């Protein structure tokens, strides 16, 4: 799977299938026209992050391209989760944290005082390590995000959007007959796909995934990986992973972090075949970390 040629083919095989199944008019709205020439979706400039006085990110600068999967790898505590959580300002929830530097999404610094964090999080969806389904029905889990964002005008529109969200997350066939049942009765992998469906239903531009498969078994992991590859057509995806093979299988770009610093950032192909830095090579080949 490391071979880029092979990855291309598998993507091509899935694309037509995907469009026929999930592309409903509402979801197509944002992508009907080709993206403009901007090659940068997220521009991280000299970002420093502190938990109290502990510096968790040191001068990280990184540009994340649109409609690609960008993977963050590195040993535990290297700051990759912290970084992904700065992209939708989820770290604001943690007391005693501070940020220096800029994160620009489509040229707008999200840490400027004028940023509306609620609006930002609507544009930048997130999937967490453990499935975070609400203790409600499958239907209500997705309906919630739609309702608070005023995305469901009528009952039929709500149902349509829930259906397309579930289809986008490749969960529809498994749950269509039991939408009213509690979400927590689903298996771990299904719950995680429900969380992805919930994030996709509100039509974000970027989807952040913080180790989305680390709590899942290999089969569920495989389904989610396939899903991520399908989704990158329409979303910019940033994924944190501990699993080297996963990064090489699904990502286009890979960033390697160590002790809060960005060590190397390049195309996944280059990172996994001939990285510039010795440290990257050692980590990827399992010699340290």
């Amino acid at each position: 799977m490391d071979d880029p040629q092979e990855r291309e083919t598998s993507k091509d095989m899935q694309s037509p299938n995907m469009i026929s199944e999930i592309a409903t008019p509402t979801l197509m709205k944002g992508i009907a026209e080709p993206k403009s020439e901007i090659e940068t979706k997220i521009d991280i400039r000299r970002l420093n992050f502190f938990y109290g006085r502990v510096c968790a990110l040191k001068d990280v600068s990184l540009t994340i391209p649109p409609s690609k999967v960008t993977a963050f790898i590195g040993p535990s505590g290297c700051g990759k989760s912290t970084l992904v959580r700065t992209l939708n300002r989820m770290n604001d929830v943690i007391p005693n944290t501070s940020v220096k530097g800029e994160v620009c999404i489509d040229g707008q610094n999200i840490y400027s005082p004028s940023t509306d964090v609620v609006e930002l999080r609507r544009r930048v969806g997130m999937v967490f390590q453990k499935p975070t389904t609400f203790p409600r029905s499958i239907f209500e889990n997705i309906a919630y995000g739609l309702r608070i964002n005023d995305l469901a005008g009528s009952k039929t529109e709500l149902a349509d959007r829930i259906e397309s969200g579930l289809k986008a997350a490749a969960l529809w066939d498994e749950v269509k007959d039991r939408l009213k049942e509690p979400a927590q009765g689903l298996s771990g992998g299904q719950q995680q796909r429900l969380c992805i469906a919930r994030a996709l239903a509100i039509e974000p531009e970027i989807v952040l995934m913080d180790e989305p498969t680390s709590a899942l078994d290999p089969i569920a992991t495989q389904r989610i990986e396939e899903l991520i590859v399908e989704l990158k057509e329409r979303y910019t995806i940033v994924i944190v992973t501990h699993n080297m093979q996963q990064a090489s299988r699904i990502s286009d770009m890979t960033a390697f972090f160590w002790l809060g610093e960005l060590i190397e950032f390049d195309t996944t192909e280059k990172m996994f075949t001939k990285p510039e830095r010795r440290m990257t090579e050692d980590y990827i080949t399992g010699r340290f970390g």
Partner: protein
Amino acid sequence: MSAVQKIISRRKRQDFLFNIVGIACTLIGIVTLFALLGDLVIDGLARVDWEFMTSFPSRFAERAGILSSWVGTLLIMLVTASTAVPLGVAAGVYLEEYARRNWVTNIIEINIANLAGVPSIIYGLMALGLLVYQFHLGQSILAGGLTLAFLILPIVIVATREALRTIPQSIREAAYALGSTKWQVVRHHLLPYSTGGIMTGIIIALSRAVGETAPLITIGALTFIAFLPPLPVQTEAPFVSLEWVNSPFSVLPIQMFNWVSRPEREFLTNAAGAGIVLIVVTLSMNAVAILIRYRMRKNIKW
């Protein structure tokens, strides 16, 4: 017998010994409680009938009843619950979800924990000074209900915070990640998911308030009331009346206290009868709390 076996058999003896001591301690507690309840039932059960429930107090023991005191207890609880619950839950939500962690909130936190341990008579003194003398509420149902509301407020706050703390942080983050505001997280997620815990806390706090005597006597609750407060519903507009909150009152424990302190034996029987009613009220409130907790836990698992 080898040395190791000796040590093992000694440890087993200790284990057995503690088992016996534990059973004895448990039995002492339970047997005493059942003896008290049994005694109360034997003394008073014969007295509890429809007439007892629907009669006003009287100087003749066989004609006396608890109508005005159980109505008083009910109305006091209504005032207490409708003030302490919104105040306590709001304060608990604020402290747990909104307040920044700094020395001010730390001091507030410690003091709320302390307030829960303040003797109830102190609340009575404060209510006498503040509600009766300062705000001129008089010796009314309103003053009594507010006094007990002060008393249970810390318990409600602590229960709310505990219930909120059992909700994993990941649920909050998941809701924020969908573009929720803080209030939406509280209103749509935290409060619904913690309702079981909060309700349990509220009911336990109220069942403590039901039995309180000292603070109500302090503010001047009457022990002999031969009339009921005005009805909350009227035949003319505006149909609802709050006149009853200004009415003087008595409550079950005060009625019991009054009867117990009389010399005639028959009044002791009355007190036992009132005690049975009070215990039934308290126990059924606790039962409701357990039921709510059970049902909520069944639906939500983290």
